């Protein structure tokens, strides 16, 4: 049976979501997306720089992918909602990653403002995936408001520090039925694999892929980490023990024990 992730009425095969920031150019980004097999791709919305016009990034995202627009740059719910509405008007779809940040040092999200934006945008028909600091109560509220999934951070954005918030995310995985997608800070494929091993539904990675020496192969490596971790989770990873348990039979030795 196929192991599909369902979000916002969409059935998704790849549990590896990819961001599009920091790639040295769009063709390279496109190759990385293709090599990862990702189906969900994030982009941001910004004022047009009239002094240096760039290509349209959407043309470099495979047509089979769902574009998820992030509200990065928003400092409160109102700004996030404004960005989401602008994104919808562009015709790029209605998948929104709500990202509300007021702290420029650690780029940690403002959960309360994120919750407010979630509530309003869900009512407006968006498929809403809030990026959040891992917190069970807040995640529950977001899901109650209609969030399609919640996206707790593993460590600060772009830090490559990996899964520093594991215990809090584990609680969310255990207690919340909606998909839990680890977003931000994952630095290596083994981080992505670990997220999947303990039951997260997907991961979103950008920086670690984009700034690596070979983003095309790194995207693939992350994607393979996700596949391995998910497969292991479905097989139910055996519990740890404090003492040894032999893997080979303890009888029939060549010597004769008395």
């Amino acid at each position, binding site marked *: 049976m196929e192991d599909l992730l369902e979000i916002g009425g969409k059935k998704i095969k790849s549990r590896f979501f990819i*961001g*599009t*920031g*920091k*790639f040295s150019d*769009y063709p390279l*980004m496109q190759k990385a997306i293709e090599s990862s097999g990702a189906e969900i791709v*994030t*982009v*941001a*919305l*910004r*004022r*047009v720089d*009239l002094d240096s*016009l*760039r290509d*349209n*990034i*959407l043309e470099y995202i495979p047509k089979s992918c769902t574009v998820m*627009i*992030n509200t*990065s740059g928003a400092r409160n719910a109102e700004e996030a909602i404004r960005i989401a*509405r*602008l*994104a919808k*008007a*562009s015709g*790029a779809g209605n998948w929104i990653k709500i990202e509300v940040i007021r702290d420029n040092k650690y780029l940690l999200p403002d959960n309360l403002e994120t919750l407010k934006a979630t509530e309003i945008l869900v009512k407006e028909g968006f498929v809403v995936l809030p990026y959040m600091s891992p917190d069970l109560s807040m995640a529950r509220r977001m899901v109650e408001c209609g969030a399609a999934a919640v996206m707790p951070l593993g460590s600060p*954005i*772009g830090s490559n520090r990996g899964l520093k918030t594991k215990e809090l995310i584990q609680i969310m995985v255990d207690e919340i039925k909606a998909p839990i997608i680890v*977003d*931000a800070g994952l630095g290596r494929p083994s981080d992505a694999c670990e997220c999947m091993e303990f039951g997260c539904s997907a991961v*979103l990675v*950008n*920086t670690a892929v984009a700034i690596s020496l070979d983003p095309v192969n790194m995207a693939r490596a992350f994607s393979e980490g996700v596949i391995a971790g998910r497969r292991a989770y479905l097989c139910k990873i055996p519990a740890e023990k404090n003492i040894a348990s032999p893997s080979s039979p303890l009888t029939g030795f060549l010597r004769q024990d008395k």
Partner: protein
Amino acid sequence: MITIKINGKVQTIEKKVNLLELVKSMGLACEKVVTEHNFRIVAMEEREKIVLEENDNLEIVSFVGGG
């Protein structure tokens, strides 16, 4: 000539120019940008109807890479 704000910067433009004409004159592909006129989103097909006036506030945004 009139003065309007585009993406936070004050600019001088010809009188009686509509939003569609302005976007084109800036070298922007119309379908690749989203426009907001005085904090109201303007759909692509509506741009021609918006004639810009003194002190109008315009936002012109487009998609960029992001995580």
